[in-house]
């Protein structure tokens, strides 16, 4: 999958650095892992949530256009930061149907950074702004 990673990305452009800054909660640079120029979105059902440091990860089964189940691994912000923004661990639950938007990882086809996680009623879980 490294073919997804063009050599030129070794030197990050300013926009990527800016995105890194706002997305990664200081633990790591965004562009060391995710490609801001490779957006992705999908709809599916949450199968697991890891409320752990340094980042919250959640897992979603989505069905692709060929009818195959795709297992997505999605990183979001640091759990301590989410708490201080007013979010609780159970604001996202196993079984929830979600629409996820974000950027794909360089390394792997089904790993991504989740910028927006939206529930069917339109609520955006784990967003930057507290509820």
């Amino acid at each position, binding site marked *: 999958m*490294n073919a997804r*990673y063009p050599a030129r*990305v*070794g*030197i*990050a452009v*300013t926009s*990527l*650095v*800016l995105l*890194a*800054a*706002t997305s*990664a*909660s*200081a*633990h*790591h*640079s*965004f*562009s*060391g*892992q995710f490609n801001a120029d490779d957006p992705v979105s999908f709809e599916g059902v949450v199968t697991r949530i*890891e*409320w*752990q*440091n*340094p*980042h*919250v*990860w959640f897992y979603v089964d989505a069905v692709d256009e060929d009818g195959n189940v795709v297992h997505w*691994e999605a*990183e979001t912000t*640091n*759990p*301590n*930061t989410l*708490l*201080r923004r007013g979010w*609780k*661990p159970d604001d996202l639950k196993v079984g929830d149907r979600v629409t996820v938007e974000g950027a794909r*990882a*360089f*390394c*792997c086809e089904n*790993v991504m950074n989740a910028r927006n996680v939206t529930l069917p009623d339109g609520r955006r879980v784990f967003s930057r702004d507290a509820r």
Partner: protein
Amino acid sequence: MRASRSGRRCAVAVAAVATLAAAAASGQAPRQLAAPPPADPGPEGLPDFNGVWAVEYIPNVEQRIGGPVPYTEVGQEAWDNRVMGEDPTGYCQPSGPSRVFHTPFPVQIIQTESQVSFLFEMLHMYHRVFTDGRDHPNPVDKTWWGHSIGRYEGNSLIVDTVGLNDRTWLYTSGVQHSDQLQLTQVFEKTDPDTIRYTVTYDDPVFFTEPWSVTSEFTRSEYDLLEFICTENNRDIAHFITE
């Protein structure tokens, strides 16, 4: 016989790894917030820094200072060739005594007459500044956090740090430095609930001149939370380092 022993060792190793994985998976980050503990009054006659403080997150210092860092040729080459997947804190390595004040995570300051101690939520780290009049050791070891001594002037604590290794990044954007870096950090108590913080970076190998960044600390609404970086650092498997 030898093959059999070897196989058993392997099985034991696999079991150990499986146990470790299970333990890691069961760990949880904090799930609730608390108010900070009451701040004890600091030593008499000194500006009082005791308390839990929210700091300003500055990942991209170039944006903050309105232009590039004043790099020497060596520093510029390091900047141009930086690899974003090699950010040390991404691997749970220490931030060092500078970057830690420009993260999204609060800091507790515990002040006595002879020492100022910083407890950092970021990666669950601490740092000590000696204010008892001692000097730096000579020679000084090159370490992640260096050796810090402080003195008071008016409403300010002025901290001088040497003995830093060259393994940290100063900012998430990828600002690196040599082991000749000397930090000067000024903590000025501008009112009961505010500290003006100015850090100056002096590194003749990486920077053509000393340069500074100023930010503000305010009283934190919440106490420090546990932050165990190795709890579930799945990022390591994803970093691009080529």
